[in-house]
């Protein structure tokens, strides 16, 4: 069966099942009435509406422009796919994945991301293991877990004393650490865990520039303004982590610094905080100041533990 035939059969099956759902013969009148009602309101209180509309248009245009301009580097694009692959295959939430930091390397098969949990047992063994995702140039990402070969019964029980932690234990850990403030699990946060508050991306490719803080970097005429960088960062974070418009409004962009790579390229390093579904999200974005490309993006789940 060809793809077109497959689609046709699909549509027929749906249409036969939903035959009871028919369009409304008066829909045009309802739509026209709604539009007209909106226009009449506009005339009735012209001055007030113009002010509100201008504010809305200003807000809309900045968000829309930022969204339209989103342009991810190959690494940042692949990272999004890698995160989705882990979440889809292993059932981790985005918040749980925020307990992991990632490294990336280029291989013949594509970009390989390694997500390593910041939570380890006191004896150093990695209870949550590592998730490794290969994102090929073409085709689907393939995710694996360092505990794929282990008996699932070990971690599926949700037992916090189990030597392997799956999604259930990670969620419990997040809950206890965040809400109770004290935790007595036999785990420590890894000493070398990368802090999202001060992003220090590792040089992952031979050609990748090493980031250095250049306090005297001066804004160039070709550079994005700080305001544009902030808007782009919010749009990129909203897009990457599938956040809502409300989340975007609540997001606190608390730092936006101009820095330079060793090659002299200007970048905006942006840090943002969001209280999301009961958890602290610390996020960062690195933006090419000239092209607006999202060079790197990351999120870590925080808490008060």
């Amino acid at each position: 069966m060809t793809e077109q035939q497959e689609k046709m059969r699909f549509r027929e099956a749906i249409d036969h099942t939903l035959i009871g759902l028919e369009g409304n013969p008066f829909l045009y009148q309802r739509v026209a009435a709604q539009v007209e009602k909106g226009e009449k309101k506009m005339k009735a209180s012209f001055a007030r509406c113009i002010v509100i509309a201008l504010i809305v248009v200003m807000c809309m245009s900045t968000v829309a422009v930022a969204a339209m301009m989103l342009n991810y580097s190959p690494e940042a694009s692949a990272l999004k796919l890698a995160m989705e692959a882990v979440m889809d295959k292993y059932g981790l939430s985005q918040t749980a994945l925020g307990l992991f930091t990632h490294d990336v390397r280029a291989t013949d098969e594509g970009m390989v991301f390694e997500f390593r949990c910041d939570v380890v047992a006191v004896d150093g063994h990695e209870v949550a293991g590592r998730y490794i995702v290969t994102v090929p140039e073409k085709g689907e990402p393939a995710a694996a877990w360092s505990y794929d070969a282990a008996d699932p019964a070990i971690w599926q029980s949700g037992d916090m004393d189990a030597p392997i932690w799956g999604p259930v234990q990670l969620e419990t850990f997040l809950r206890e650490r965040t809400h109770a403030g004290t935790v007595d699990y036999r785990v420590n946060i890894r000493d070398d865990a990368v802090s999202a508050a001060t992003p220090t991306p590792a040089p992952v490719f031979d050609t990748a520039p090493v980031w250095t803080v250049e306090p005297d970097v001066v804004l160039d005429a070709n550079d994005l303004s700080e305001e544009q960088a902030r808007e782009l960062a919010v749009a990129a974070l909203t897009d990457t982590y599938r956040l809502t418009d409300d989340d975007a409004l609540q997001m606190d962009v608390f730092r936006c610094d101009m820095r330079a790579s060793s090659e002299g390229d200007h970048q905006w390093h942006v840090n943002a905080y969001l209280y999301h579904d009961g958890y602290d999200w610390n996020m960062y974005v690195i933006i090419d100041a000239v092209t607006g490309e999202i060079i790197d993006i990351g999120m870590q789940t925080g808490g008060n533990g």
Partner: protein
Amino acid sequence: MSVVKGPDSEREESIRQMICDHQTALLRMCYLYLHDAQLAEDAVQETFIKAYRAWDSFRGASSVKTWLTRIAIRTCMDMRRGFWFRHVERRVTPEMLPDRAQEAREDESALTLAVMNLPKKEREVVLLYYYQDLNVNEIADALGVMQPTVSYRLRRARERLRTELEGRENHD
């Protein structure tokens, strides 16, 4: 004497024609996405209101159907972001399907239910690809994601549907 129509009447006629041509398919797509006939009707009405208002900016870069589908799916996505939807994802059962669904063949209603019970992201791409006949580029544009993401979700959805429907056949 010929009557010269102004831009407003042209727009009205175009919208009237769009509603006539596309509202039923959009209603069914919104229903499959939202799992609620009343909400689906609201989403379709909202879609055409948005289309009416944005008609002057429609340049014909895509077909009218693609344009409307994009507006409709985004309207549905906005509706789903509400508190209730974020916390409740009901599994749809045959009894929850609209009137006259029992007139369909069993395999047809099984497919409909399987699609409705797909995870949201996979459901989106399946509806746009198979039901609304958008291509991968158009879907990526409508959902604001990259093309490989669409292909990946589509593949996952196919696998899931195949497993679900084959499991059902074996069970029967």
